[in-house]
Every structure is written in structure tokens, then in C-alpha cells.
């Protein structure tokens, strides 16, 4: 079977742009009657959150490239430290990311390949 490799820009339009933009367009056309608390919106937000969580977990647990040189335990510990920092330091995303990154660099420096 011969497969034609689609152009990456065509893939971007078909797989990235259109499936994403459709919801903005629908919002523009149907912009009445739905609010943030309606049940379908709550469900779809839960599905989107779970998808995002799966992607986050995959990027931390099974990274593709350079991040793989830093041991799994260090990556998990750094993410956990970032989370704890977020809770402790005034719910600041910025501070949490700094702490998580610092832990990753320290752990990678001590235990990395």
C-alpha cells in the first residue's frame, strides 16, 4: 500500500486549525442562551481537563527527547515540588514554575546522565 505523506501545513489546517476554530465560530453564531454553569459546558470542561492532564502526565512520564536524560524520579519530584510551592506561595503560578524548574535542574545535575 502506498501512502501519500500529507504536507505538514495541510495537517496543521485540518488537524489543528479547523477542529479548534469550529468552537469559536459556533460561539459567534450561537452566542445566546448558554452560560458557564450549564451542564453540557461543565461536562465538556471536565473532558478537556482530563485530556490536558493525560498530556501533562505523558510529557512528564514518557518524554520524547532531551528530558529523558533526567531520571523519572527527579521529574516527578520536581512537578510535586512545583505543586506544593503553588499551594504554599500565594497560589502563584510563576513561583511554582520557578521552584519546579530549580528542583529539576538540581536533581538533573546530581543524578542525570
Amino acid at each position: 500500500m502506498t501512502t501519500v505523506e500529507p504536507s505538514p501545513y495541510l495537517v496543521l489546517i485540518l488537524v489543528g486549525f479547523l477542529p479548534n476554530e469550529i468552537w469559536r465560530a459556533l460561539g459567534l453564531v450561537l452566542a445566546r442562551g448558554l452560560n458557564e454553569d450549564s451542564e453540557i459546558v461543565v461536562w465538556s470542561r471536565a473532558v478537556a481537563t482530563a485530556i490536558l492532564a493525560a498530556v501533562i502526565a505523558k510529557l512528564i512520564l514518557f518524554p520524547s527527547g532531551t528530558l529523558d536524560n533526567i531520571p523519572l524520579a527527579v521529574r516527578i519530584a520536581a512537578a510535586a515540588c512545583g505543586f506544593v510551592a503553588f499551594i504554599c506561595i500565594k497560589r502563584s503560578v510563576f513561583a511554582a514554575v520557578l521552584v519546579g524548574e530549580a528542583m529539576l535542574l538540581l536533581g538533573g545535575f546530581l543524578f542525570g546522565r
Partner: protein
Amino acid sequence: MPVPASFSYPGAAFFGGVRSALGSVFFPVLAGTYIGIGALAHDFAFSSWWLALSTVLVWAAPAQVILLSALGAGSAIFEAAVAVTLTAIRLFPMVVALLPLIRRKETPFYQLLLPTHFTSVSMWIESLRLLPAIPAEHRIAFCNGLSTTYMATATTFGFVGFYLAAKLPPLLAGALLFLTPLSFLISTVRNAHMLVDRLALVFGLILGPILSALDVGLEIMWTGVVGGTAAYAVHRFQEAAE
């Protein structure tokens, strides 16, 4: 940051939006996020221009990360499209909530197209916070100035991350790649105000790797549907119990 309530010359509202964007918390957040996404694009062997175009066209960091990691890991195109569209549903209620703020009776339809396309978490939060203080006739220009600046910031720092990832020693390049999952994890925790959102996050974090390890195929999509629906079911049970 104070916003001038009136604008004295044409275009002043647009530049008011630019100034608000540069002074907002989302400026460093977007810069950091897109440095991470740039590094990710490099890691998955995409071109920097492909990434820049995806920032302008898709303009949603979660969808872009899913697109990069799904296509880069060789997932089915169908699965990538489904995962992107499922994360994009959240844009629908945002547009619905934004439009009443910027639309006046005499506003032509085409003027709503740009603010609609610009709708994303960062722009939406700042627009809903700042627009009420701005005269109705200047809101679209202000919104466009704000959003253009955010988009330019993201595109620029995408390039920065891409080229840094190529040049830096492995440990530092690894740290750049870690920016995306770390900042997404933390901002998802921040945005999860309701029990249903927190449960969906936890279910996704657990279910995603399990389904991945079991090699079931379309695991991102299934994690979303199963984990999200389970979280929603718990939420319904809890509401019914109250």
C-alpha cells in the same frame, strides 16, 4: 494597571490594549509557556515556521501542545483532531460570554471576527476584567490591541524556545522541555475551582499513563471521555446528595 477611560485619538484604544497586555501577568506566563512549546516543537522535529503559523492560526496553547505531541509521536491524525477539538470546546462559552461586552447594535459582523479568533484563556480573563471600564465604542480596538500583543509575544518566544533548545546543553534543554508540563499542570490546578475540575485533573493524570502503558490506542481521547465523564458523574451524585 489603570486603564484610561477615554481615548483622545484614533488608535489610542488599540495602544491602550497593547500597554495593558505588556503590563499584565500573562506577558511573562505566555513568554515562558511558548519558550517551552518552542522547545517541544524542536524536540518533535517540527519547523519553527510551522510552530509560528500554528500559534497564529490555532492560538490555544493546550491544543498546540496536543497537536505537537500527538503528531510528533506518530498518533493517528484522527485521534489528534478529536483531542484538539475536545480541548477547544472551552472556547465556545468564552466567546459566548465575551461578545455581549464588545457588540453594540451598530457593530458590523466582520468587526467581531478578530476578537472571536483571538479568544483564548489569557485574553478572555483580561478582557472580562478590563473591558467594563472602557467606553463601548472603543472596546473592540482595545481588545484587538491586547490580543495582538499577546499573540506577538507567544510567537516571538516560540522562536526563542525553538532556537534555545537547539543550542543549549542537554540538562538546560531538558529544563525548557519541562516548562510545558509544569506550567500546564500548575495553571490547570489554578483554574480548577470546582470539584468536578479537580477530579477530572486527577483522573486524567492517573488514567492517561495507564492507558498509554496498556497500549490501547487513542489513549488521550479515551482518557478525556472516560476520566472527564467519571468526574462529571461524581459531581452529579454529589449535587443530588446535597
